[in-house]
């Protein structure tokens, strides 16, 4: 594939141990105005995307690709509770925001973007799916730049939220919004941080066949997504001869789309010129992978 330049990245990622913090003031601080009629999911999208833009004027023809494993869980649960537990009509403002693409609308509106926007809901490969969609559109010249993000929201009570996520009582859930601003690498390839590959494979054999085609430098690191078990990661690492693992998850609160944090963490911590191969899996035995390279001359921040 044609490498994609990572123009900037930005994120919000916080563990939640009691009620999630109020975000209104932070949104107002970042976008410069009070955005009304939005819930936490959209607030998180605006915070992450705003930090990614970091005060720069993103070109209006930039497309928005937002992914989430479960969408706007907060308004969806509120509307379902109102409908089925309380047998009442849902509030209009809650109801319209159950359309998850509402977050794309507000993001595009606040950043004054007028290109296409897409919302992708994928339980195991949320970030990877949005990234691949953006990559395909960029490669085919359908868009000139892309803003790719994921958002995961915590909905109290925490016990219920943990049950939704299928995590143990001692695991701390978190809220996250990770964003990348991507464009064509072009002549800046060597200096820039780049996405080198985005792949999805139907099974282990197909993944290994693809991995066999890669030229992995000595300073390539490997990381496993949260749905790839450790023995499988170790096996892949051994087979392709990558010496070192990159850990971005062990100190992180739990949310569905942790893969998205790998890019920002890697760019923030890795040496110039090094590469990260990230592999994730789903319970049906499918695999998703992406490769990132830290540019030699870039001074990007991880947001």
């Amino acid at each position: 594939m044609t490498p994609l330049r990572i123009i900037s990245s930005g994120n919000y990622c916080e563990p939640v141990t009691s009620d999630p913090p109020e975000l209104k003031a932070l949104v107002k601080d970042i976008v410069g105005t009070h955005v009304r009629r939005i819930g936490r999911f959209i607030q998180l999208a605006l915070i992450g995307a705003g930090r990614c833009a970091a005060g720069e004027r993103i070109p209006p023809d930039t497309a928005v690709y937002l992914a989430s494993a479960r969408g706007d869980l907060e308004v969806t649960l509120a509307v379902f509770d109102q409908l089925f537990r309380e047998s009442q009509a849902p509030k209009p403002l809650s109801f319209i925001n159950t359309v998850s693409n509402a977050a794309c609308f507000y993001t595009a509106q606040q950043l004054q973007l007028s290109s296409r926007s897409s919302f992708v809901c994928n339980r195991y490969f949320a970030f990877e799916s949005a990234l691949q969609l953006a990559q395909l559109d960029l490669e085919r010249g359908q868009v000139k730049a892309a803003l790719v993000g994921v958002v995961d929201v915590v909905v109290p009570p925490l016990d219920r939220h943990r049950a939704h996520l299928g995590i143990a009582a001692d695991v701390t859930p978190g809220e996250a919004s990770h964003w990348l601003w991507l464009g064509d690498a072009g002549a800046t390839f060597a200096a820039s941080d780049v996405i080198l590959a985005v792949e999805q494979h139907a099974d282990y054999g197909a993944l290994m066949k693809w991995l066999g085609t890669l030229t992995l430098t000595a300073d390539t690191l490997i990381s496993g997504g949260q749905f790839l078990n450790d023995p499988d990661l170790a096996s892949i690492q051994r087979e392709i001869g990558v010496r070192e693992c990159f850990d971005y998850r062990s100190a992180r609160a739990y949310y569905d789309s942790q893969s998205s944090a790998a890019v920002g963490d890697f760019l923030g911590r890795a040496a110039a010129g090094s590469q990260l191969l990230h592999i994730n899996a789903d319970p049906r035995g499918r695999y998703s992978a992406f490769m990132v390279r830290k540019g030699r001359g870039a001074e990007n921040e991880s947001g």
Partner: protein
Amino acid sequence: MARLELKTLKQSLKAMIVKECDKDVEPESIRDEELLIGGALALDSLDALQICLAVKDQYGVRIEGSVAAQRALGSVNALAATIMDAQPD
């Protein structure tokens, strides 16, 4: 409804409007006679629907149809009058 209750009702309605429509203003900054929809508050038809549902939930008063909604949401005074008129004697 006594005079003091009317004043309390209007204060409650202003707080409800600010909360339901997620406006970044102080409730007391809304004037009793101020136009709610299409006025300085910049509320729209979605806000109108939200307010009507909140009035039904909190006061048990249904505001049905666009003519009734337009009349009731003319101002805080009009909304309070709509609620008071619907109270049993």
